[in-house]
């Protein structure tokens, strides 16, 4: 069918191509030593620790639609740099290495394997979000790598017996749901509640927490709507919630979607009792785009100060935070609530390393699961930060706040679920 000429040419070409591909593949694999033997894993109990440094790995969503969450990388680094300038922790500098995962679970896992196996990181620090954090649960726990302070509130992260090497740094979404449920009952015992939530563990845990509190009362959830990150608006969800006859609205969302929801609620002239999840309540990111005058009276539950709130302008703790960012975090926005959360998270890691009796993976993991840190800069007064055996949730107390004028104002006393985060 083919003439001889082209076949010969094709042969040479194919041979050349294949030789090149083999060369590329072999060249790409720059590591040494084989990986066939299954016993080659394991080794020292504290990789990543030398006399001078401790290597901590991270993977962040630095690009893609959720890149606002990427600030956790550079903001944490700013704090670590400030600690290093003061001499480090246990006489060692923190060597913080992180990569971009674009919010893609495959890349999160790739980055984690790279950090642990290639870069020999001591542990993984602060994965952000439920989906991202869930994608490495198996890996880090099978390999006994400390997976410290995942910013994730889904119930999965409270299952310490399933994931003994994972420790969250957030309030459980179920606690948020329970606290909100309690608050709603105090305002309207027969509330008809509409929930707009992310279609993930966070949203589901929130609803479970709230349903637990509402059981046996006159109040109930009448409609649950979810959104996808790819949605352009949440107009249809808000319309359905309103049509369900709800008189109370709970929004569990990231900043952009809570803005979209609040804007739509305002446009429709709907006036439900509105509660925003922590992630949905940033003054600058969520409320400002809607217009402060249009979001008066909405509620939220806080454990951290809102750095964009003028009432904390002269707060010494936030002053230290701003000073650190000014010196080590050039380009970071101190008013971004995520930046402060990352800064708090970095403080918790440093305190954990500092308190750990030895810098081994097991000892540090143990220290992370036995924390009692009331003095973290950024924490609201009256909110404890504690973990203990069987209770990995560091934050289980929330202060209800209401938006009045241009700021969040505390309402009542902090509501505590210490040791009782709903499962």
């Amino acid at each position: 069918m083919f003439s001889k000429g082209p076949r010969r040419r094709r042969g040479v070409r194919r041979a050349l191509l294949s030789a090149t591909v083999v060369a590329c593949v072999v060249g790409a694999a720059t590591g040494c030593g084989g990986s066939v033997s299954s016993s080659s894993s394991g080794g020292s109990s504290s990789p990543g620790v030398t006399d001078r440094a401790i290597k901590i790995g991270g993977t962040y969503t630095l690009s893609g639609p959720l890149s606002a969450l990427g600030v956790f990388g550079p903001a944490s680094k700013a704090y670590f740099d400030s600690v290093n300038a003061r001499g480090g922790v246990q006489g060692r500098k923190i060597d913080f290495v992180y990569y971009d995962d674009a919010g893609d679970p495959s890349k999160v896992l790739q980055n984690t394997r790279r950090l642990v196996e290639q870069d020999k990181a001591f542990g993984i620090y602060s994965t952000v979000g439920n989906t991202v954090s869930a994608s490495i649960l198996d890996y880090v726990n099978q390999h006994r790598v400390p997976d410290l302070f995942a910013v994730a509130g889904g119930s999965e992260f409270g299952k310490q017996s399933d994931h003994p090497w994972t420790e969250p740094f957030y309030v459980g979404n179920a606690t948020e749901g329970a606290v909100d449920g309690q608050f709603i009952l105090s305002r309207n015992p027969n509330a008809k509640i509409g929930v707009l939530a992310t279609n993930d563990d966070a949203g589901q845990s929130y609803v479970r927490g709230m349903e637990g509190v509402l059981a046996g009362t006159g109040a109930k959830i009448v409609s649950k709507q979810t959104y996808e990150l790819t949605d352009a608006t949440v107009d249809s969800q808000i319309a359905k919630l309103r049509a369900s006859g709800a008189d109370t609205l709970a929004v569990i969302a990231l900043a952009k979607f809570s803005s979209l929801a609040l804007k739509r609620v305002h446009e429709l002239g709907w006036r439900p009792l509105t509660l925003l999840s922590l992630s949905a309540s940033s003054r600058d990111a969520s409320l400002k785009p809607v217009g402060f005058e249009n979001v008066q009276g909405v509620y939220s539950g806080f454990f951290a100060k809102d750095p964009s709130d003028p009432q904390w302008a002269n707060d010494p703790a936030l002053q230290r935070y701003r000073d650190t960012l000014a010196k080590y975090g050039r380009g970071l926005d101190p008013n971004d609530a995520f930046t402060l959360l990352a800064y708090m998270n970095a403080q918790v890691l440093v305190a954990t390393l500092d308190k750990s009796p030895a810098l081994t993976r097991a000892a540090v993991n143990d220290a992370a699961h036995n924390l009692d840190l009331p003095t973290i800069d950024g924490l609201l007064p009256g909110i404890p930060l504690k973990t203990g055996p069987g209770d990995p949730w560091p934050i289980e107390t929330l202060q209800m706040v209401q938006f009045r004028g241009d700021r969040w104002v505390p309402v009542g006393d902090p509501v505590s679920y210490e040791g009782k985060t709903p499962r």
Partner: protein
Amino acid sequence: MTRTARILPRLAPPAVLAALAAAPFFIGQFQTFQLATILIWAVAILGVNLLTGFSGQITLASGAFVGIGAYVTAVLAVHAGVDPLLTVVAAAPFGFACGVAIGIPAARLRGIQLIILTAVVAVAFAPVVKRLDHLTGGAPGLSVPRPEAPAAWGVSVDAWVLWVSLVPAAAVWYVATQIAHGRIGRTLVAVKELDLAAPALGFDPSRYRILTFAISSAFCAVAGSLYAWSYGFVAPDAFPLTLSITLLACAVIGGLTSVWGALAGGAVLTLTPYFLGEVSASLTGLLFGVALILLVYVMPGGVAGVLSALRDRLGSFRSRGGSDLRVRGAAAHEGGPHGAATVDRAVQTGGSDVQ
């Protein structure tokens, strides 16, 4: 020279296979995992090549089909307790069937409409998987048991996964070459280049388009099974629209009609972000995009095109050469219903692997 030229192409596939199989003896676990990842994307890109390179249909659903295959493996392994290795046998026909379902409307569409239809499939994938959470585990995803060698052999999971992945990958490669160099491949090119004339020559173009779409989807689904083996975890957000776009870009970079180009494309997809991570974590995404654009710009014929152009140049120094164009043209006409358009194109892009 003549004898070598005849033997080499026969030796090349087993040589590559042997090199890949031997690699874990020399490289670390993470690199072995990377190699398996290259293989996953190479298999998916073979599917894209078949559809875009041969049939001329542009799809943005390839990532979703990889996801479908990954979930077939995950669901069967987790809920039905099927050995993950066996699930690939189900993933391929399932992908094929889904491909037929989408291929039927897709065969009637061209250009932008087809792109939109397949983009809808890609965008709908994650929400649908999340809705079926009793089966799929919803947004947090599902942990899949990774294939493991019998304990007595003492083989690491990563090496084992790479070795077992080579089997379906080689099968896909074989089917792809058979199609590329056989009657179907030539017919597909004819259908692509001579859309209106094809029926006059006795082909039903839409039947061939549906078939191609289905085979391409089956390839992607096989890649999905390999993905589940390698990652041991599937989540709906791991197969976004951008994955399909990246697969398409890497297929072009590898060389759209080259079977070997798929391997190069897989390597680009896996290793470029890896090396860019060394340059700057915060700019990895941006630089990867720029790198893809540059690669397409400097190598419109892909890696395969550049290599065959290099080969042509080397060849013209050594041999008394005849005009390449003439030889190609003759081959094309002998080879069946290729039109002049194919020959022109082959010359323009520095040659493709299929004449």
